[in-house]
């Protein structure tokens, strides 16, 4: 019997996994007061990629939206997330800019961070944790789960020991992006993290790609996890996390308690279902168990990207080959965890290998940077035959001669035309200036996202969906109906 706390991922990873980060602040705001009163330990809300997407594709000022959402959730500890060494993109972000991110997010009301680094640059993680702590936020140190011969329980135990050593790290977060943490593995993993975690609470975040995460959560609780990441049902499952609704049911059966007000869940889910229906966004449904998820460990959303890339080369039928190749490339590159930036890096290499038909004939700059250790020490060495190809690549010498810089904040400001406003400076770190201008030109934050709700309108939409003819007319004594395309 344990008391289980929940971290809401509806507004962050739920919509990241299912809506491609297209959730506008105005879509979330009607639900925010409900979420605020539901009883979550933390409400995850934002990250630099969300900033990028909102500006580029929604022309919405992410700072403004964030302020509104935080104001609508006064009771809640709102979370932001970041990689230890970069915001967005493949490039390495200067430490000073990362620190500025944390401080500015705190100034806007963020009170919780999750900080990750697939290669575990512990110094950078601890530095950011200290900055966050000084600005009044709590910190979850992420342990990114990956399945490989080198990612053993002992490996994760050692990382837990390092991460938890800082007094600025409050909780340890086992983070399973690809949903490949199986019920039979989670027990021994949690035991190791717990044994090395200095008594810090353990969070679990697992994408329900195979449908087993729900079960993994229950096993994890039996071994000492007390904080679960879940999302409202329409933004749960499939590539997203288990739903809050099902986890409450399941933990009750094991006799665990929680502080969630279940009465509010239905309203929140109904709101996001209506939004999804009206704006053509995807609602999460559980996946049928698919063994191949364990082989390639590709995050849910990325499969779609790979499919699109292949379609551009007229090779859409080769998705399975690319997925197989992904597993091989990952092994050859020393088993990086399949998370940004490495999931992309491995995925792009796999696509190149298949599309060109000659393995490692094209080597992206980022692979060279990775092999040179610019992102940190690789978990396992890059295999010698691939290392040879990398060293022989035309760009190798040039990239080796110019390791990433680490300019001061003053220097960064100077390079960006001495922008006085730090929030603006951070936007420029994320997107090109013309996108920021287009965002400004689009006007103020849109708050009104009406949803259709009458049964007649639902019928009409359904009818429109299924009708094939260009024109349908139906008349009875009472009524006449016309449908035209």
């Amino acid at each position, binding site marked *: 019997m344990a008391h289980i706390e929940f971290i809401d991922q509806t507004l962050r990873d739920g919509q990241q996994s299912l809506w491609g980060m297209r959730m506008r602040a105005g879509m979330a705001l009607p639900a925010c007061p409900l979420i605020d009163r539901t009883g979550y330990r933390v409400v995850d809300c934002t990250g630099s990629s969300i900033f990028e997407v909102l500006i580029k594709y929604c022309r919405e000022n992410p700072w403004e939206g964030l302020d509104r959402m935080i104001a609508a959730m006064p009771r809640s500890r709102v979370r932001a997330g970041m990689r230890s060494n970069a915001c967005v993109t493949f490039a390495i972000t200067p430490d000073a800019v990362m620190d500025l991110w944390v401080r500015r997010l705190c100034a806007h009301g963020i009170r919780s961070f999750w900080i990750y680094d697939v290669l575990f640059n512990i110094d950078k993680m601890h530095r950011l944790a200290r900055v966050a702590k000084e600005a009044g936020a709590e910190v979850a140190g992420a342990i990114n789960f990956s399945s490989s011969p080198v990612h053993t329980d002992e490996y994760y135990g050692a990382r837990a020991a390092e991460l938890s050593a800082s007094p600025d790290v409050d909780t340890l977060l086992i983070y399973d992006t690809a949903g490949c943490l199986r019920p039979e593995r989670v027990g021994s993993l949690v035991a190791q993290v717990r044994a090395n975690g200095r008594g810090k609470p353990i969070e679990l975040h697992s994408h*329900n790609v195979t*449908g*087993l995460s*729900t*079960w993994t959560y*229950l096993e994890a609780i039996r071994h000492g996890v007390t904080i679960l990441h879940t999302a409202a049902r329409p933004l*749960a*499952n499939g590539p997203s996390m*288990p*739903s809050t609704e*099902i986890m409450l*049911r*399941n933990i009750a*059966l*094991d006799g665990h308690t929680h502080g969630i007000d279940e009465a509010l869940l239905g309203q929140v889910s109904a709101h996001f279902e209506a939004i999804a229906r009206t704006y053509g966004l995807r609602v999460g*449904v*559980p*996946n*049928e*168990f*698919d*063994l*191949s998820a364990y*082989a390639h460990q590709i995050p849910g959303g990325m499969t779609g990207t790979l499919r699109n890339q292949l379609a551009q080369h007229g090779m859409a039928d080769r998705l399975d080959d690319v997925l197989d190749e992904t597993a091989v490339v990952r092994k050859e590159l020393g088993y990086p965890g399949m998370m940004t930036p490495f999931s992309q890096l491995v995925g792009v290499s796999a696509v190149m290998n298949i599309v060109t038909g000659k393995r490692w004939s094209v080597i992206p700059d980022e692979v060279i940077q990775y092999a040179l250790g610019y992102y940190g020490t690789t978990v396992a060495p890059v295999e010698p035959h691939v290392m040879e190809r990398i060293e022989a690549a035309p760009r190798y010498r040039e990239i080796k001669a110019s390791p990433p810089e680490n300019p001061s904040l003053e220097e960064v400001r100077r390079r960006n035309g001495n922008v006085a406003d730090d929030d603006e400076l951070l936007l420029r770190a994320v997107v090109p200036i013309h996108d920021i201008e287009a965002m400004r030109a689009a006007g103020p934050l849109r708050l009104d996202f009406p949803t259709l709700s009458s*049964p*007649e*309108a639902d*019928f*009409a*939409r*359904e*009818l*429109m969906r*299924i*009708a*094939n003819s260009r024109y349908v007319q*139906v008349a*009875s004594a*009472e*009524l*006449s*109906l*016309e*449908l*035209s*395309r």
Partner: protein
Amino acid sequence: MARIEIIDQTLRDGNQSLWGMRMQAGMALPVCDLIDRTGYSVVDFVGSSMFEVMVRHARENPWEGLDLVVQSLPRVRVRAGMRCHGIITMSVTPDDLMDLWVQRLCEHGVRSFWIHDPLHVNVDKLHRLARVANGHGAEVVLALMYSVSPVHTEAFYADAARRLSASPHVDRLILYDMGGIMTPERARAIIPGVVAASNGKPVEVHSHNVTGLAPLVYLEAVNAGLSILHTCSRPLANGSSLPSIDMTLRNLRLHGHTTGIDESLLAPVAEHFERVARAAGFPTGVPVEYDAWMVEHQVPGGMTGTLKNQLAQHGMGERLDEVLMETARVRRELGYPAMATPFSQLVGVLAVMNVVTGRRYGSIPDEVIQYAYGWYGPPVAPLDPEVMDRIDSHPRARDFRGTRPPNPTLAEIRRQYGNVDDDELILRFLVAEDHIEAMKRAGPVRRDYPALGSSELQRVHDMMSASTARYLEVAADGLRLELRR
């Protein structure tokens, strides 16, 4: 690396689990040739409940439908299924009529039978039916009905396997998980004992994907040496139905196993049934979130819907969870019958009455008294003494105590039903005569089912009656709909 045999359940259990057995022959016939050529060894198709539903609700002659389907499946063995002591829900059917049912099905071209007894005690009846079917050249598969309770141990199933497989007329056994409550661990624990006890006869596996774990159970079964799996075309798979053929093949392939399935035929069949579902307003199967309560109460997926409806009729729709828990308790008190027909219904009805009236066992259906007095064979565990007292002191108890169910001969049955042919006799036994008359009036079986038209028009009609406005206009996605009164 094994060669796996696949049995198609689209037309029978997929239809039963998701469409309430409303699939008319004309809905299946257009794709029977494709199914026939897909490479299945057996296509399950029919059972007495389906006969009943076809006559009552579809006004369609099931013998005629069966003939058409059997003719269009010349390459595969068509299967029928039955309980060893009954072809009508809840009651006990005379032996002679059971034998006649098997004979007539064989005459109509059925070449495979699965036969079950939820209590695994009526071995004489099982073996008698096996002899009849075998004598007509049909294959016989006897079922081990999976259940969870203190008495349903590994030894219980090994013992049942030994007794059931002992007849030379039994060709195979089937491990039958109708509630979808088998976990991979239980599969690992139970299967070796069953295999060892089955007298060298092959064991099929049939698991409903109610908790999302059935695909894992299938992989465990294959690891344990079993090689015959039951699946459905995707629109009729998952949820309360079985795993899909698509995902099962994918998972098998990843483990290096082969099948004789022609995958190019799967999509056209799935697309056909999707169209039929849309046109007829039937649901398609979607995977579900892992719900530990399913294992607790063991109520088959389809039955949850029935319970929900029954409660709604009493204005108690919100008490479903309570009824499900009461179901688990009633089942324990009745000596853990496996939750299959007729016991799932008996337990469910009692649970609803206990909750709705607020008085446990305030009323007791005749069938429960008959069960307690051994009409269906001895219960697998003794009934709870208090409940047995309630039954003993029931006014109807004296009518059933020490009695056996009536077992008239075929000659006597014929006298009762008049001078009709055997097929008609069976129909009359299953449904009231006025239903048969109505069925005959409806004319011959339709060979197809219009996939577009009627249901859209029905929706338009619904919309017209739901709308109170004199004028309604909806426009979206390049479509415009106008409604005038």
